């Protein structure tokens, strides 16, 4: 599904990613762990096309398409989704309007007719229940005044609405209390299908108790320095990262 080869990226001339190789297949859940500043968030930002990062070398092929040549909106329509570490507040733009525009853009990309208001509200109601998102939140502006936990749930709600092929969860567990963590993880698990995949970026083992990875990678100083099975996460929890350096 996603093949990354020798990916180098920099921000303001400073190289952050120094040659990433990664293969993610359908059905798989990958965890990317690593200490602060190792490049985890940069990797996710580069994949979804954040304009602040410059790719200097390498390639990323997503379902046969050259991902790095596509604008962010097209990457989304092609099935890539990032759950932001820090979801953005957009005062004045209602959740309903935001999501309806996004869903219909996706449908347009797929050659489908836009959803009418009734169909859309039905879909929204259904997906809201999945992450136990408070009804009143979808009537507000995007993320405005949402608590940390509500913002993260809202990310997973959007993920449920857009049904991506590949979802990247960037520190979705940070700032979550244990109940929210469970709800978010359950939401993610329910969205799993044989034809989609998930990349979980996290500091801690905690989230991986709920979302079980097939593969665990350790990112350090812009490179993946170790790849192993789920047992690696437990080992990291116990020993930290120092022994790997």
């Amino acid at each position, binding site marked *: 599904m996603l093949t990354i080869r020798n990916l180098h990226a920099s921000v303001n001339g400073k190289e952050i990613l120094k040659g990433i190789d990664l293969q993610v297949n359908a059905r798989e859940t990958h965890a990317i762990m690593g200490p602060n500043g190792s490049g985890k968030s940069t990797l996710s930002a580069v994949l979804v*096309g954040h*304009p602040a990062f410059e790719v200097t070398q390498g390639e990323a092929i997503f379902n046969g398409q050259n991902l790095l040549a596509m604008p962010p909106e097209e990457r989304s329509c092609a099935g890539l989704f990032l759950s*932001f570490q820090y979801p*953005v507040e957009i005062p004045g733009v209602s959740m309903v309007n935001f999501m309806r*525009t996004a869903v219909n853009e996706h449908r347009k990309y797929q050659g489908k007719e836009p959803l009418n208001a009734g169909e859309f509200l039905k879909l929204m109601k259904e997906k809201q229940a999945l992450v136990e998102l408070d009804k009143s939140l979808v009537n507000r*502006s995007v993320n405005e005044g949402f608590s940390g936990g509500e913002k993260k749930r809202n990310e997973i709600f959007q993920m449920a609405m857009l049904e991506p092929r590949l979802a990247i969860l960037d520190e979705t567990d940070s700032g979550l209390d244990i109940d929210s963590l469970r709800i978010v993880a359950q939401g993610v698990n329910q969205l799993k299908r044989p034809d989609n995949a998930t990349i979980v970026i996290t500091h801690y083992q905690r989230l991986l108790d709920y979302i079980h990875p097939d593969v665990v990678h350790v990112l350090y100083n812009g490179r993946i320095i170790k790849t192993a099975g789920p047992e690696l996460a437990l080992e990291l929890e116990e020993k930290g990262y120092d022994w790997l350096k």
Partner: protein
Amino acid sequence: MQQYIDLFTQHKSRIEASCAPLLNQAREQAFETFRRTGFPAYRSEDYTHTDVPGLLQEDFGFYLNRPASSGAFPLAFHCQMLLQTAFSAYDVNGYFYSGEKNQPLPEGVFSGSLNVFAERYPELFSAYYHRLAMQEADGLAAFNTAFVQDGYVLYVPENVIIENPIQLTNLLIGNQRSLINRRLLLIFEPGAQAKVLVCNHTGNEQTAMAATQVCEIFAGKGSVVDFCEMEECSPQTIRLAAHYVRQESSSDVRIHAITLANGTTRNNYRVDLAGAHAELQLSGLTIADQRQRTDNYTVIHHQVPDCRSHELFQYLVEEQAIGAFSGRIIVAPGAQHTEAYQTNRNLLGSREARMYSKPQLEIYADDVKCSHGMSTGQIDETALFYMRSRGIPEAEARYLLKLAFTMDVLRGIRMEGLSDRLKWLVEKRFRGELIKCQGCI
């Protein structure tokens, strides 16, 4: 400027011939003020960004012969900004016309021509006309008073409430470049309540039209006044407008200045909070592109204790357009417990767009709450990226963000249905469609 002095001197009798004697009474003195001061000089402190003498330097035609009939509006024209109006009025090139299907207003209310008001209510006219404008020796207001031949008056007697809004449509029509002078006088006695929407349009995109407007609003004790003015004019239009507002105790006044399309616009707002517990909301929204210029100049004078003012002006300036905001708030000595809040937010959409902002707070009392905030920037890139990352194309995301920006001002409008209507116009504006409010020329 000399051509206007000559014009007045030569044609004074023609200007006066069709006007009420009381209207003419104020003329001579105003003319003397104008002769002395001239138009406000460009680059003088209050006119840093609008060159009034330059704008009016070339010769403009004048309509000096007031039409004999100020009866019903002659053109098939129905502005539908509001679904339900209590009264519709038209000002065509400075002359008043009544709408066709007006229902009777509550007893004692006068809504009509300035000349008719002067004849029918001479005492009221003398008590109010030009009383606020004359306090400042402003050359523009003096010019208007010297040349004005007609206008619109709304007089709402004590405790009378007019539920539905009154709509005044100002039209500039003609194939000759012309200068017209318009007058508005709105008098609200104690306890009176009414809402006034003023729409400004031009009939011909090609002809340069200039308009001066002086609007005086008297908000009596405990009155509730909504005044919303919308401009949607051609790029050839020059609008020079001065608004004077006096608020007595416990009055509640809301003013909205919406500039959707224009050429060169200067709006002055001077509000005197003259009675305790008066409350003011003064808001403005400007959307400007091409080479449009909008300069809003405001003075809010807290003269007495215990008044509140909220000021909010937002500008969206794109292409080579220029926006200017000057917000002066004066808290007089002894005006304790004043609350005065001012916000000016501006979005610039291009490298060439310019915004000039000048907050100016003068506080001479020590027990007050005052704040001001100004920000000028570009569209929030993080929000833009967030939306794009959900599949929304960049142009659509920008459109949604711009629309959101305008809503802060529009949602403060208390006239039912009007903020939705304006939102609809703003949407059309952003999509580059014609934004004539439905039915308008």
